[in-house]
């Protein structure tokens, strides 16, 4: 569904991505793991058209999307849930969600949008209870649900999820990841960026490890879990293994 071929990207003089190639097959959850500053969020921004690639090619559903605007890419079916949620705090939950349908409102009409709103409420029942509440007053987990719901309102074929577990309590993380699995079973393809490697590898089919802007490992999740380097750097297993 998505192919990223040898993409490089810069912030001023600093190179954030060095020849990164990844792909996401239709219907799967792929995950991108790496430490802070490894280039994960940059890659997400390059895919959704927020940050321009300096080199390389992006192909989505057979279409070359490199250099297209973020609006065009969204309309083609790539939804991006940004890191840190970025919801509209003063607006109500329902307004946040409805805004997500902005790009398709005219085409699909009110009825369709209302129907999709119901499917978001089915996924996150708590949002229905709080639909009138201002989004800024919600808990972290609920805000994350609003951010995901808002992106889903655009009906993306591919969902980019940037650190959905950031700053959340373990139980809430569990809820979010359950929702991710539900989404996949509904047919949404997902690229998931995470620092919580354990949780990500539990739901993903395949994964990539990125370090200082370079992909250093690719594989099915079972293989990544077997890799000592992954265990040491991302799953925190090393000490126990050596000293126990």
């Amino acid at each position, binding site marked *: 569904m998505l*192919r990223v*071929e*040898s993409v490089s990207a810069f912030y001023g003089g600093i190179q954030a991505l*060095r*020849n*990164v*190639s*990844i*792909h996401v097959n239709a219907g799967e959850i792929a995950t991108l793991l790496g430490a802070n500053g490894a280039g994960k969020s940059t890659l997400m921004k390059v895919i959704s058209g927020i940050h321009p690639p300096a*080199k*390389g090619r992006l192909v989505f559903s057979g279409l070359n999307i490199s250099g297209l605007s973020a609006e065009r890419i969204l309309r083609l079916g790539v939804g991006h849930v940004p890191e840190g949620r970025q919801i509209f705090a003063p607006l109500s939950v329902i307004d946040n969600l409805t805004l997500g349908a902005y790009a398709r409102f005219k085409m699909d009409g009110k009825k369709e949008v209302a129907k999709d709103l119901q499917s978001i409420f089915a996924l996150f029942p708590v949002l229905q209870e709080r639909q009138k509440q201002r989004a800024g007053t919600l808990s972290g987990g609920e805000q994350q649900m609003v951010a995901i719901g808002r992106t889903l309102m655009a009906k993306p074929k591919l969902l980019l999820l940037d650190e959905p577990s950031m700053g959340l309590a373990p139980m809430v993380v569990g809820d979010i990841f359950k929702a991710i699995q539900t989404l996949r079973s509904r047919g949404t393809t997902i690229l998931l960026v995470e620092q919580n490697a354990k949780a990500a590898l539990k739901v993903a089919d395949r994964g*990539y490890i990125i*370090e200082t802007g*370079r*992909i*250093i*490992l*690719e*594989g099915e999740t079972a*293989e990544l879990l*077997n*890799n*000592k*380097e992954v265990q040491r750097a991302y799953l925190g297993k090393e000490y126990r293994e050596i000293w126990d």
Partner: protein
Amino acid sequence: MIWDRRYECMEREEIEQLQLERLQSTLNRVYRNVSFYKKKFDHLKILPDEIQSIKDLAKFPLTLKEDLRESYPYGMFALPLREVVRIHSSSGVTGKPTVTGYTRNDLHHWSQLTARVLTAGGVTKDDVVQITFKYGLFTGAFGLHHGAELIGASVIPMSTGNTSKQVLIMQDYKTTALVSTPSYALLLARHMESQGIDPKSLSLKLGLFGGEPCPEPMRKEIEERLPIRATDNYGVSEVMGPGVSGECEQKNGLHINEDHFIPEIIDPQTLQVLSPGSEGELVLTTLSKEAFPLIRYRTRDITSLDYSLCPCGRTLVRMKKVLGRSDDIIIIKGVNVFPSQVESILMEIEGVEPHYQLIADRVEGVDTLEVKVEVNERVFSDEIKNLQTIAAKVGRKLREIVGVSATVKLVAPQSLQPGEGKAPKVIDRRKK
């Protein structure tokens, strides 16, 4: 049957994307973890970051068997030994042996790949597989053993030797698939004939051959004498062992497991990459190996690649049966002559034995090639006229197939047989 449709039947575009991703991450890892590659890349001022497409691989340096010997034993491992769960080694007939290591993931992939090769050769969970490769430091037996077990076949780890016992077990245990070298299969057939055992009385139906070249006439002979379906498989112990490639039921070349290896064909003299279809030396880059990755490893094996689609449904590129080594190559007037080509020509001509000697010389600045060929007893005592016809036929075939004119000399039976103290296959007088 196809073992892993997901990876064996990908679109070309998909294969290339996967290869690009894995190549980039492999280069990033070897540059970081293997000092041999770091030094070599730095020296040539070529960094992993420069791989924009698979074609850029050609800019990277080749790895030679000598490089592996110099880093004996563990110098080229990309991970510390505590992450290695298996160690294998090559023979070391000429100099120090080479040592290779496998992580748990490497072993998992290895089993998957040999399972593909065995399935392509016809093995299923209902088969009883007798493995007659040597268990030990060599990769052959263990590699295919794991794959056969993964398929769910019943594996008999016989190892080498004791031909009578091999046959006895074949009879009593009802072996259905034989894993061996092709010459051992012929030896088994001969042994059975001498013991008055009818190979048809066995349950044997498949033969999976590797470890040495199996020219087409040899395959035919095996298939007739031990009525079985014989397929060829290929491996390089430094690269992984068996599981690099194998024939399917079409028997029209060996499918290379391209999701784990990138094959290239180079001219062994100029080292330039040749276009698809050209004959040359096979160079392999590993894409998934964690403990012992290799970049552009020169196999010394001569073959060619065929990217046309195979009727079996696999989309993996096919390599031609390996029949020669680039070490044996001689160049006559700019034409590469492989002793194996000569051998396969001789095997098809009635009256001559596949025992020969190639003598290259230079007369007044012009390359010449003389081919001495043994004739069999019957022809040897025949009329001179017949001998001349045979010599002319050999000469004509050499011109047609190899593309060189040669003086053909027929010699007495038993005078050129290979072996210790016997005549060498190639003599190059130009080197003096």
